[in-house]
């Protein structure tokens, strides 16, 4: 079964905010050929992946997965070219991955109100390096975004998604 028949209303605002975050806040050029949503039974993970769970009526898991190259560029932008030591490189990348997802999702959260007009909540982010899904048949809806510095995938999965780092 495809993910909610691919008529999901959660992902488009997240994708929209991701695009504006990249292009406006981070000044990263988006390549135009990346606008197709993919309904699949697996998620194609890149090097650095962060997930946040939605709490409330919607119990989806929001996934963002960056290539190493793109995350490097984002870290450089966020730290304004600040020098990162080898020791803290991994920690800062994980931190950036989490914060970006947290910020993007936080910025669109008020669009996902429940039937009684309450805002839904979200979990704290979790991150994985070279993530792997234990369940090989998780329904996902996702989109790949190509940028001048590499790509990222943004998607949602049903609540059964369990990830581990390889």
């Amino acid at each position, binding site marked *: 079964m495809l993910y909610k028949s691919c008529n999901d209303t959660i992902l488009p605002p997240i994708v929209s905010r991701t695009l*504006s*975050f990249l*292009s*406006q*806040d981070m*000044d990263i*050029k988006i390549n135009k050929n990346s606008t197709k949503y993919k309904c699949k039974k697996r998620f194609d993970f890149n090097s650095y992946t962060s997930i946040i769970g939605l709490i409330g009526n919607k119990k989806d898991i929001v996934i963002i997965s960056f290539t190493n190259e793109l995350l490097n560029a984002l*870290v450089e932008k*966020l*730290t*304004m*070219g*600040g020098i*990162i030591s080898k020791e*803290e490189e991994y*920690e*800062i990348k994980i*931190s*950036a991955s*989490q*914060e970006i997802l*947290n*910020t993007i*999702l*936080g*910025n*669109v*959260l*008020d669009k996902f109100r429940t039937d009684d007009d309450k*805002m839904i909540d*979200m979990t*704290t982010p979790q991150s994985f390096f070279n993530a792997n899904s234990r369940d090989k048949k998780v329904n996902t809806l996702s989109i790949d975004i190509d940028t001048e510095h590499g790509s990222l995938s943004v998607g949602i999965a049903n609540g059964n998604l369990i990830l581990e780092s390889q």
Partner: protein
Amino acid sequence: METFTPFVQKTDDITTDINNVAEKFNIKNNEVDFEIISHKTYYSHNKGKKQIVDISFTDEQLVKSTLEFHQEYEIKIQPKIRDTEFKIVSTLAINKNKTLVYLFIDPVSVIPLKNSSIKKMINYILKKKLRLGLFVDIFEPDLELEVKKFLKVLKTNNKLLTKYKMLVSSAVEPEQQSKSEMVFHYKRKKKRDSQEKYYAFKDELVAEYIKIKKTKGGRSCLGKYILPLKPDIVSSHNIEFNTESILIEENDNTINYYANFEGEVKYEENTLRIIENATDTEEEEDFPNRQLNILVVDDALIIRRSLKKMLEQLGHNVVAESKDGIESILDYVKYKPDLVTMDITMPNMNGIEAVGEIKKIDPDAKIIMVTSHGQEEMVIGAIKAGAKGYLLKPITIPKIIHELQKFSLRQEKKQNNSTLAVEEDDDDDDFFM
């Protein structure tokens, strides 16, 4: 205001160039008694290999700030034009009286100079209180009006800036493109678009002005106004800000002008005038413009680093970074910072609890919450615990400046009202306007 007299001159050497500028504009010797405090040209070929070609300076701190400031610029060449990536080519020359006499901007491309780049430079100039005239040397003739527009804003904002002249250097060899051709092309383009833009601009501004009048009950007001204007409209019309409490933020389709001030809003012809009432500038300058010792509290390393860099870029000093609420209390006692930026969701002790504890130790502690959308209820909790403001992620330098300016206004209010502190309810209103 001086009129602009663009002319073509190829620029190679900064010292020769300034002498040429002086000669062209009949500048007296004492007016160009300058020191080059920063001359930075760094670029990368084929990605990644950055080289600093030349840096000469005398004032270490100023140069440090300048260089950090310059790193904000990232100007990329369109691949079709040149397979080279430039970061920034710019020069500030300041004389012995800290007068900016020369500003060199070279975007080295036909890509329109981004408003944000010039704005950042102008913010820097305003912040550092650099004064008097400046020369703007740009490589692209098409940038002339863009730069001119922002110089106008600069001139309006900085009363000490009395005159400026612009030197247009063309990347094209002078013999290939004459001065008259250059000017003619530009004027023709402008005329074609102007009428349509004028009406759109006028309608939008009048609507906005009426809204302000209705909601605020008159021309004299105190508050925050957001005037969304399309960039192409802004570029061809006048907006005069006689206030330093103005912030400019760009979105994809609009530029938002945030005016947080007490004074008048006037609309006449095609000009919106925002006029701030006279204030005691010394008092106003005190909090946001002096160097603050700041404690940054956040469990996310990337946010700590990012905030530190931005605050330092604004001339402040980050005394410590704390990873959770408990650390923040210990660091507060140890460093006694002027200001704390506090994350809300953290391990061990969250930001709201930490605010409460710090306020018990020091009731005058100044704390700004750092938060995402969707945490407004938690921000209210933090404000009740004693926080004085909040920064919404993603954090940007204009947002920080804005928040610090709010402190300034509150400081002023408090000084004006010697018997009572500003009521907490008033503060709350400010946060969610």
